[in-house]
C-alpha cells in the first residue's frame, strides 16, 4: 500500500484536495470532523494519511509515508541534507510563503544584510548583548546569516506572534513566513532587500527511504504519471 500524507486541516488541506481532484484523484476525509481518517478514490493501492503539515517532513524521512504534501520551508528547516531523504515531485502552486528577514521600518540606515551586520556589531558594543533575531526557523536563518557573513547576532526562539517581538523589545529583528507582508507592515517592520531566505510553496514530496515492493513500485509509478 502506498501511503500519501496530506495536511489534516484548513486551506492547505482543501487546496491539496482540489489539486488532486483536478488530476482525477478524489481525496476525502471520512468519519466525523474530529476523526483523522481519509479515503482515496480514482486510484488503487493508495491510502490517505492525514497529519499536521509540520509532521510531514519527519514522516517522509522516517519512511512512514511514501508521498507527502508540505511546504518547502518545513522540509528545509526540519531535514538536514534533505535532498538525500526526499525528492520534490511537483510544486503545487499554492501555499506561497516567503521566509524573510525583517527589521523595524524606523531603521532608515538598514537595507541590506550588510547593514544588519554593521548594526549588530554596534548594537553589541552599545548594549552589551548580541542583536536578537526572533524566529522559529533556527537552522535556515543561521545558515542564511552565515552565508551572508552576518555576525554578532543571537537567535531567540519564537513559535508565534513573532512580528510582535520587536515592539515588545524581546528581539531587534525577526525572520518569519509572510505571504502578503501585511502583518509585517502592521507591526512597522520592513523586509531587507536581500533578506529573502527561502521562497516556499506547497510541494509534493517522495520519500527516498520508504520501503516499496514490486506492487507498490507499480502503483507509485502510475500515480506519479497521473500527477505530474
Amino acid at each position, binding site marked *: 500500500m502506498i501511503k500519501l500524507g496530506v495536511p489534516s486541516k484548513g486551506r492547505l488541506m482543501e487546496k491539496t484536495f482540489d489539486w488532486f481532484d483536478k488530476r482525477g484523484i478524489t481525496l476525502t476525509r471520512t468519519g466525523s470532523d474530529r476523526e483523522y481518517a481519509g479515503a482515496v478514490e480514482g486510484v488503487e493501492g493508495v491510502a490517505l494519511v492525514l497529519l499536521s503539515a509540520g509532521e510531514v517532513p519527519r514522516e517522509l524521512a522516517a519512511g512512514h509515508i511514501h508521498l507527502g504534501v508540505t511546504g518547502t520551508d518545513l522540509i528545509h528547516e526540519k531535514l538536514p541534507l534533505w535532498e538525500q531523504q526526499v525528492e520534490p515531485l511537483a510544486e503545487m502552486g499554492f501555499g506561497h510563503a516567503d521566509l524573510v528577514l525583517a527589521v523595524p521600518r*524606523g531603521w532608515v540606515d538598514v537595507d541590506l544584510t*550588510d547593514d544588519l551586520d554593521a548594526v549588530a556589531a554596534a548594537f553589541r558594543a552599545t548594549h552589551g548583548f*548580541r542583536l536578537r533575531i526572533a524566529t522559529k526557523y533556527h537552522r535556515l536563518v543561521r545558515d542564511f546569516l552565515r552565508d551572508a*557573513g552576518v555576525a*554578532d547576532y543571537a537567535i531567540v526562539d519564537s513559535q508565534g506572534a513573532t512580528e510582535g517581538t520587536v515592539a515588545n523589545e524581546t528581539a531587534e529583528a525577526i525572520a518569519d513566513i509572510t505571504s502578503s507582508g501585511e502583518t509585517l507592515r502592521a*507591526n512597522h517592520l520592513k523586509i531587507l*532587500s536581500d533578506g529573502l531566505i527561502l521562497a516556499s510553496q506547497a510541494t509534493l514530496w517522495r520519500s527516498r527511504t520508504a520501503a516499496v515492493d514490486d506492487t507498490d513500485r507499480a502503483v507509485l509509478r502510475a500515480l506519479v504519471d497521473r500527477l505530474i
Partner: protein
Amino acid sequence: MTDTRQRAYALRARFAQMGAQVVEPPVLQPAGLLLDLYGEDIRARAYVTSDALRGEQMLRPDFTVPVVQMHMAHGAEPARYTYAGEVFRRQEDDPERASEYLQVGYEVFDRTDPAAADAEVFALISEVTAPLGLRASTGDIGILMAAVDGLDTSDRRKAALRRHIWRPRRFRALLDRFSGRVPQPETRAALLAGKTATDAPLTGLRSQAEIDARIAALRADAAEPPIAAAQMECLDALLNVRETLPFALSQLHDLSVDLPAIRPAVKRLDARAKALAARQIDIDSLEFETSYGRTSMEYYDGFVFGFYADGRPDLPPVASGGRYDALTRRLGQGAEIPAVGAVIRPGLLVDLERAQ
C-alpha cells in the same frame, strides 16, 4: 579499553613527560561563554542542552576554552597542560563525520620565548604522528592581522576588516568596497543624500540616537578616500603567499618593504622557522600559506597548523593547533599570557595505522 582510548592515554602520558599537568575539564560547559566567543554559529557545531538551574549548557566542543579559563583563574606560570577525553560536534552536513570522538591535547602557557613554544608544540605533534608520514600545513593569522592594522585607512574600516578575518568572503566584500573596486549600494547613496525617510514610528530597543550615530559614521566613511590600489595589490599578494617556508619568508620580507606594519609579524615567523629547524623539523619542505586557518574557529591569532593524511581528503586533520594569545586576554579579565596548543585525534591515528 578500546585501542583508541589506550592510544589516547598513551599520548597523554607522553605529553605529561614534557612536564604537562593532566587536567580534566567537565563535559558540560556553560553555553553563554562559548556563544559569546563564537557567536550563533557554534550552535550548528555543538550540542546544546539545558537545565532549570544552570541554564543552557553545551557538551564541550573543545578543551581549549575551559583549559584557558582554568589557567587564567588560578594557573601558575609558566604552565603546560594535557588532557584526553571526548569532544562533541554536531554534524549537519556530513553524516560520515563523527559527532563524538576522543581528543588529546597539549597546551603551553609561557611568555619567555613564544617562537620556542610554537616549535615545541609543533615538534611534539610531529613526533607522535611521525610513523604515518602526515603532511603538515602551516600559516600565521598574525601576519594578516598586522597587514590590516597597517592599512592607510580609518580605524572604523580596520575594525570591520579585523572582525571578519575569519569570514574570507565577507572580508573580501568589505575590501572591495573600501578600495572602491565595488560601488556602494544604491540604497546607501540614497541614505547619504538624505533621501530616505519613513513615516513609521520607531519600534524596538535600538534608539534614534544609535541610528543617527550610524548615519554619521556612514557619512564620515563616504568622505574617506579609498584604500590605495598599491596597498590592495600588496594585500592580495600577501593573501596569495603559498610556498614552502623559506620561499614564503623571502616573499613576505619583500612584501614588508611596502607593508612595513607586517615586519614584527614576519620577524616572529623568522624566529619560529629557526626554532623549528633547531628541533629538527625539515622547514625546507614545510608548507606555509598566509590564508591557512582562516575558516576554522576564530580564536587563533598567530601560528596555525594542521596535519593531514595524504590521499585521504575525506578525513579531517589528524592534528591541529595554533597560538591564541588573544583568547587568554579575552578570558583573563585584564590578565593575559602568550599561549599555544594543539589537539590530536587518536581515533584517526589508530584507523590510519590499521590501513597501512
